[in-house]
């Protein structure tokens, strides 16, 4: 297992007693696998992402990534947060290139190979439909554009583990489907491991090898699905019978998961 969480429990301290976000969560993802996590709003998906990158440490349970126990933030990951959180004092390009200033070995190389790296960032921007927007500041971009820049920032340093927290939520259907294709290609090329949080079940099925369904808070995995479709997957596949059935199945599970607490 490349990423494994075992009986993990996470509670946030608060003035009104602690908030139990995750409890007894167990899941595993193989190297190079594309995993998706779905579940009702507020069930702890973002919390799960924070655990897997080491931003939070669990109160109990074990987390291992790349065969090492997670004890603090990992630099092998690229994370696209749910909220774009681009730095307002940097241009979009500078925002995208931020990880290069932090993560080794790019950090060292950046000075000498700035043009090459800049080119790479600009290529990424145009891949998501933002060519020519590199010099703009984040607050000069629309919501969907910010989200796309955020995705570029997660990709720029060729992470081994990619964490995407609703990366396409603010996009229209077409831009979104284009980016699905982009993600699929990138994954095929680079074989990184991906964890994708999404509310769009079609998105989850189209992109992922394995889908985890989470219960309502406190979150844990209630079911795990292998997606049987061979890759590369054409966009039309989403209209196929088998695909639509899987969507319905997941839908049903989430509906149950929500009711459980309600």
């Amino acid at each position, binding site marked *: 297992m490349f990423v494994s969480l075992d009986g993990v429990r996470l509670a946030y301290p608060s003035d009104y007693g602690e908030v139990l976000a995750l409890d007894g969560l167990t899941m595993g993802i193989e190297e190079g696998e594309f995993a998706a996590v779905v579940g009702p709003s507020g069930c702890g998906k973002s919390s799960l992402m*924070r655990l897997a*990158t080491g*931003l939070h440490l669990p109160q109990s349970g074990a987390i291992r990534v790349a065969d090492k126990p997670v004890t603090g*933030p*990992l*630099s*092998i*990951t690229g*994370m696209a*947060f749910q*909220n774009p*959180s681009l*730095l*307002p*004092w*940097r241009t979009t390009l500078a925002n995208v290139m*931020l*990880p290069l*200033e*932090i*993560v080794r070995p790019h950090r060292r190389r950046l000075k000498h190979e700035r043009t090459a790296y800049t080119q790479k960032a600009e290529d990424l921007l145009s891949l998501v439909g933002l060519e020519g927007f590199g010099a703009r*500041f984040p*607050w000069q971009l629309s919501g969907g554009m910010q989200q796309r820049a955020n995705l570029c920032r997660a990709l720029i*340093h060729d992470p081994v583990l990619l964490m995407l927290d609703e990366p396409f939520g603010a996009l229209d259907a077409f831009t979104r489907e284009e980016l699905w294709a982009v993600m699929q290609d990138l994954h095929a090329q680079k074989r990184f491991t991906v964890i994708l949080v999404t509310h769009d079940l079609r998105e989850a099925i189209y992109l992922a090898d394995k889908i985890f369904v989470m219960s309502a808070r406190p979150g844990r995995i209630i079911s795990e699905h292998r997606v049987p479709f061979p890759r590369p997957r054409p966009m039309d596949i989403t209209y196929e019978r088998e695909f639509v059935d899987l969507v319905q199945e997941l839908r049903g599970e989430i509906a149950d998961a929500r009711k459980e607490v309600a």
Partner: protein
Amino acid sequence: MILTLLKSPRAAPFIYAVALIILWELAVRIGDMPVYILPAPSVIVGAIVKYWSPILKNSLVTLWTTLAGFLLALVGGLALGLLVGWSKAIYSGLYPLMVGFNSIPKVAVVPILVIWFGIGVVPAIITAFLIAFFPVVVNVATGLATIEPETEDVLRALGASKWDVMTKIGIPRALPYFFGSLKIAITLAFVGSVVSETIAANAGLGHMMLAAQSQFNVPLVFAGLVMLAVEGIVMYAVMAEIEKRTTGWARRGGVR
């Protein structure tokens, strides 16, 4: 016409200054304020004209000691601010001491400096530094302490060190306040070097003003004060310009 002029940010500094001068002149004339307490601006201008050479020389001395002290305060304050922002223990250990030290009038420290460094520019530079570094520390440390965790996480998720977080987020984010603190620091640096010069220098505006005071040449004392104000304003303008170029992003909005 006058109203629009009043509302124009470019004309405003001059209008306000002129208004102040006129008010001052009137207050002195109508209030019949003796010249040895508060000379009228016209009298001060007379003193500036009469003593322009010593005023200029001493102003330059004060300007450079102040700038040297200010730059030290900038660097030192930044470093100390980062240090204090670095660790909660250092914060809660060092902060009270700094507050205590800064509650002490720096005049009290100058004699010690004289013994160590003799009189001249060194005590003035050090005094300017000692008085000016604190605002920088406070604002830098506050900037670091109030980094939004959401933003910080962006860097932490990349395995960034504390140092990275501080330099890539803490400082840029606190930049407007950092510049604010510099505005405070530069004025304090002037006060510091002048105070030191009154005790331990053969030159500088502080020295000149005390010498003038000792002869009850009050217009000249005020000429010195005016020069100080002018130097302060010039330095402010320089910093405001730097600020405008570096913190445009933060002032993209503001109260409109």
